[in-house]
């Protein structure tokens, strides 16, 4: 019977050792990418929207459906990888209401979801996971455990670079049906973990004296017409409140009158839409002495 304790413990120890080795190896790879990013003046964080930002020289640390907790962890790791020679002046963070919707919050509870997007993001967070993240009380336990485990995904690269846009646009009769939770519930109140993560990101930017741009893309009217108006107002107020800090800029383009020809779907842009965002972003960057 003693073997029932000893052998599983020995196996567990072996798995932990392999995890440690994988974590160190993958973490070093991520650090190298962050160190390289410190050689530029602009870095983009966020989610799939980051791919629609016309900044071809800027490295992007973003992945589809990326949540704000993992974004905070990437930014934290990015800060730690930098030194006095860092040239980073501006960090662009793409945000939109979806980061605070019930779906995002459910992902951040650590529950497995069928769409696998959240799972992929966890794999990319694994390598930068530190002890400080594991003991952070605001991060749900199940999410911490899954972050830990997902180092085993061995996702080798988290950085993307370059920029390309698509010409495809939505048809004129385009429509998108949002879930009832988004339409009828004051979802922003329930987004506890996401709101906490946004606060962490803002504090991190403040501590580094970066110019932090909270960039919100134009949203298609099919989204704006359906989303709960009170929740949307609370969300926008929160971003405006964050932007009261002198080094934080909120580029609020959610209600920008972009025609249907500028959208790929209700929240992704094509070349025309990306150009409209670039028209707002580039003067800002030039104001900080950066040539996009």
């Amino acid at each position, binding site marked *: 019977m003693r073997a029932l304790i000893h052998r599983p413990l020995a196996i567990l120890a*072996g*798995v932990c050792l392999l995890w440690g080795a994988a974590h160190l190896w993958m973490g070093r790879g991520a650090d190298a990418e962050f160190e390289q990013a410190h050689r530029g003046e602009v870095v983009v964080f966020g989610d799939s929207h980051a791919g629609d930002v016309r900044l071809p020289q800027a490295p992007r640390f973003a992945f589809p459906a990326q949540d704000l907790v993992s974004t905070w962890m990437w930014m934290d790791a990015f800060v730690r990888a930098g030194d006095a020679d860092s040239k980073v002046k501006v960090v662009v963070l793409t945000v939109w209401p979806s980061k605070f919707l019930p779906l995002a919050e459910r992902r951040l509870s650590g529950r497995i979801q069928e769409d696998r997007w959240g799972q992929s993001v966890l794999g990319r967070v694994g390598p930068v996971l530190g002890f400080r993240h594991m003991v952070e009380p605001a991060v749900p336990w199940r999410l911490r455990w899954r972050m830990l485990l997902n180092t085993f*995904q061995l996702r080798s690269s988290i950085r993307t670079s370059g920029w390309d846009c698509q010409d495809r646009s939505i048809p004129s009769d385009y429509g998108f049906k949002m879930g009832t939770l988004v339409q009828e519930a004051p979802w922003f109140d329930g987004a506890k973990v996401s709101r906490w993560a946004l606060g962490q990101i803002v504090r991190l930017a403040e501590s580094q004296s970066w110019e932090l741009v909270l960039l919100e893309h134009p949203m298609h009217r099919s989204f704006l017409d359906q989303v709960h108006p009170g929740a949307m107002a609370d969300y926008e107020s929160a971003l405006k409140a964050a932007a009261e800090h002198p080094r934080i800029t909120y580029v609020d383009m959610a209600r920008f009158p972009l025609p249907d020809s500028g959208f790929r779907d209700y929240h992704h842009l094509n070349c025309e839409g990306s150009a409209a965002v670039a028209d707002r972003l580039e003067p800002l960057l030039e104001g900080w002495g950066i040539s996009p």
Partner: protein
Amino acid sequence: MHFITSAFWAFLPTVLALYWALRVHWRWQNALLLAASYFFYGWWDARFLLLIAGSTAVDFVVGRRLAALEAPRSRKAWLGVSLAFNLGMLAWFKYAGFLVEQWVSAWASVGVTMDPMTMQIILPVGISFYTFQTLSYSIDVYRRRIEPAQDVVAFATYVAFFPQLVAGPIERATRLLPQMLGPRSVTETSVRSGLRLMCWGVFKKVVIADSAAVYANAAFGEAGWSGPYMVVGVVAFALQIYGDFSGYSDIAIGTARLFGIRLRSNFRFPYFSRDLGEFWRRWHVSLNTWFRDYLYIPLGGSRQGRGRAVFNVAVVFLVSGLWHGADWKFVTWGAVHAACFVPLFLRGGNRRPEQVWRWSDLPKTLWTFAVVCFAWVFFRADDMGHALDVLARMGQGWTAGDAPDWKMPGYEAFAWALAAFALLEWAQFRYGVRWLWRRAWRGPWVEAVLIAVSLFFGLRQASQEFIYFAF
């Protein structure tokens, strides 16, 4: 709950700890195993526990009556009670909808339209497995091969033992019941081999079966693969079903060993078989020997002439197909195997003693694998029309044409894992399981690597339900 869930990995250590605490009271251990097994099964749908309990109660009573009675007619009547209850339950839950459908379509073919009541019968998980297990008990008591169980808890534990309850191996009372009727010893060897088997089973399921499923699903799904890509899809399904089912069996056998209970082996490297006879001695052994002992031999086996023997073989294969599901595609799958097996049977090739595999056997092995894959098309397809479409697509598109997008995410890693799997299977087949796992690689690092690789694949891809849960 199934084996590849966090719930199971919390459940198992809890039950093991309690089992260990009760180590000097084997009857209490039985009670614990019974409660744990009912909890394990009830995790899906507690209502169907009534079926297991009903089957247990009926066969327990039947067993005792069969032992007490001497008159052949009375004994036959009591055996009939067990057969009627278990097969009736199986027929209702598994075949009633199919039979009504066939009845309606038969009348429709002569112009009579019927409006059957809609039958939405849920198939209780594992019903095909535990009914066969209880049936074998009653038949063995009837044949006086075993004494009837006097301890109802031990008997109920034999029926419902959770590692093998929902997908086998189908145990015989002659083998498993005696283990429930006395103290069991959990040795270091049984723990080692149990954990090794469990990790190997998890690897087979998560790394091989679930990865191969991506290709099989694409080929059999809407992707419309044809020619060599469709062949790859069929081979992928062959790998999927082997990894899935033998992986489940390995986890079940390994889990049982942690409780000091030995279950029978269910797979013996079937894809290295040189003919279909050997294949069926290596594939789903517990079901095939069940059919041999409780169907083929009672039908007369090979003792009543060649014609009758061929008929009996055909019946076994067709019933085996029907056991998998109420659908013509499963019957066709059985018929294909019967048609390919009978010539071998007539030549007596199925009775030749197994000899050491040599490289000169490779063409025979490949041919057997091709036949098995051909039959798998019927097994995997949605229906007969789909199966014929898949076979037609296998024959098309061998010349120039646009290649489908066959490179699934992580295909390089899968290719490496598949190569390692093939090598390990080969080493076990050629040199013996014990040589590889108990002499060459004894240390816990083997399990650690198997778990780490399984985590790598499992965290990257969607998990698939065990195929045999549907039977």
